[in-house]
């Protein structure tokens, strides 16, 4: 294999993997704290993409600046979904134990509603932000690196570091970690568990809000775009370790680089199959994922 092509593949894989990881962060965070598998994860990303698109289309806001709209809006939506839709399910369970299956089905319903409401409201047309300025590719030697993708991939790492730091050192972060470890003990120590849940869900969605704005310059918005990212996010999170913040980024990078390099030898379709093979292999050796605690 030509070393130029191989290094190009690695660069592509790192960029794409970083983006996968960043998008999966929220899913991992929500699972780690609430033990809720959020099937509507991709749909929230789809909404963020539309939000960013409409900000640009109707208000003329630059997609990167639209993050100041999408992040709070998605936080509010996440907070709402948790406190109004999922919370009654948790309340019904006496010991605050959610049946993972019923929560999964519930978020699956949210996914179906959101995707179809988007189809009804926005129609099936593909929509895309067009930057008014031109960002030339950064040349890494002979390899062109697309700036918007680089920004998104770097943002993923920054957000992961930021969220980890915040969870470790802030009061709210400690409350979230305490709730994740033992919700009954946390409740007895005076932590408002339902609020922690709502904030965590909101935070998970806010991260998607950020990534919706960051990827809108190169990913077109369609009502079905969420599913493609949603499924990738699941693979990334399970591979990296459910609930682990660094695991999400590492999982993304592993999948990204593996698929990029493998698809230079076989068709990209088969490479995706092999990456699922790798996924099974990793889970056989480390059932909790690369960074997960068993």
């Amino acid at each position, binding site marked *: 294999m030509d070393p130029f092509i191989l290094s190009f593949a690695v660069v592509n894989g790192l960029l794409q993997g970083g983006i996968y990881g960043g998008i999966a962060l929220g899913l991992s965070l929500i699972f780690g704290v609430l033990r809720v598998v959020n099937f509507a994860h991709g749909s929230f990303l789809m909404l963020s993409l539309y939000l960013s698109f409409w900000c640009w289309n109707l208000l003329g806001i630059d997609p990167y600046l639209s993050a100041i709209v999408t992040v709070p809006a998605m936080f509010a939506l996440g907070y709402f979904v948790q406190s109004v839709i999922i919370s009654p399910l948790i309340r019904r369970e006496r010991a605050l134990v959610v049946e993972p299956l019923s929560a999964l089905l519930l978020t699956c319903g949210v996914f179906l509603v959101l995707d179809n409401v988007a189809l009804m409201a926005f129609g099936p047309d593909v929509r895309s932000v*067009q930057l008014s300025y031109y960002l030339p590719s950064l040349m890494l030697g002979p390899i*062109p690196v697309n700036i918007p993708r680089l920004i998104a991939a770097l943002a993923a790492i920054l957000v992961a570091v930021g969220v980890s730091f915040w969870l470790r050192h802030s009061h709210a972060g400690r409350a979230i970690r305490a709730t994740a470890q033992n919700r009954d003990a946390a409740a007895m120590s005076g932590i408002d568990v339902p609020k922690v849940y709502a904030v965590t869900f909101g935070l998970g969605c806010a991260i998607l809000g950020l990534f919706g704005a960051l990827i809108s310059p190169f990913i*077109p918005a369609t009502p079905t775009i969420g599913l493609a990212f949603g499924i*990738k996010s699941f693979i990334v999170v399970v591979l990296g370790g459910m609930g682990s913040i660094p695991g999400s980024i590492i999982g993304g990078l592993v999948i990204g680089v593996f698929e990029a390099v493998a698809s230079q030898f076989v*068709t990209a*379709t088969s490479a995706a199959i092999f990456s699922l093979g790798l996924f099974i292999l990793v889970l056989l050796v480390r059932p909790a994922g690369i960074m997960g605690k068993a």
Partner: protein
Amino acid sequence: MSNHRSQRTTANKSNLLTGALTFGALTFYASFAFAQAAPTVTIGCVLPLSGGSASVGSQTKVGAEIAVDQINREGGIKSMGGAKLNVVFGDSQSKADIGVTETERLVTRENVAALCGAFNSAVTFPATEVAERYKTPWVVVGAVKDEITERNFKYVFRINNKANYDAREQVDAIDLLSKETGKKPKTLGVIYEGTDWGRSHAANIKKFASERGYSVVLDEAAPPNQVDFSNQLLKVRSTKPEALIVAFYTPDHLILSRQLMEQRLDVPFGIHSVGGGTEDPAFYKAVPPRAVGYYFVQEDFQIDITEVTKDPMILEADKRSKEVLGYPMSAYTAQGLSGVYVIKDALERAGSADRTKLRDALAATDIKSGPALATGYQQIKFDEQGQNTHAHGAISQNIEGKRRTVWPAENRAPGVKPSWPVPTWSERPNS
């Protein structure tokens, strides 16, 4: 029910009043919208109204609706006493299994006289099998998979190109431009979506390429709904095809076209898209114009048809399309329009909504004028397999922001000069 009634009202004039009254009572239950004296003929269209091809399906739906409105306004099916046409839609969700159950529903529950659809080859292929089993004529709209009209079916008719024609036309265009300029690519690459349409197109390209002395250096399929094409594009970079044949639906084509631009990937003899995404007006709204500069697009539609036709119905359809969809008539709108007019033509000649009689009338179709030719054909006439042998596409090149027909040479407007080979990214202004 309406079928029997309609036969009787035309056959027996003295019973006309009774028949009309009875029919009125019957249709009152069936449909408030069509509760009037003239009988209605219901036809069904299975289209991808949601899922990956939803954008295309909704355009075809608009085309079919425009045709139905026009036909009813002009007095309906005259040989059936002015019977009104009614079209019901089934949403295939771009999926084969859903398309099949929707077809069953339209045939058994809606009792349609004829069917049309279903754009996606993967849906049309099994769904037409259902239609054949129920002996219900199906007018294929949009789907190009060769085998659809190669199964000795009696009830399946296709107005548009086979995949095979599309591929041949693309290679023909490359041959023509090479002959005109004396500059000929030696290698081709083909990159396509991995379902029925893309795969059959790639197989045909490879067949014609080897016959005409091109070597295919890249053959890459990708499943629908990709979020990134950098891996595939890197393969284009490493295998260096001199011309790249592309077959993708809108969302994937959009990402591919953007990344081709971002990566400044030069393909000396250009990108040759076989429609799909590049036929979709929504595509051009969502892509920066410089990303699709010099693209060759093969489509079953002459992009400048409204400038050459004088048919008032086609011009009106173009106007209505602008009102409803916000953009001029596309290949898909034209195909929906054409499909309904072909069924209408057969209904006129059959004088009945009986499926077998309608099938025989469709088989005898020979249309040489009128709105059925909205896609730019000169004639519609089916061979014994139900394929319109007069179907042909047109290939345009995006020259200075305008899509101009360059193939066939006879269709090229004076003053249109194809760009061959295409400029590299560094030679293009503003990129």
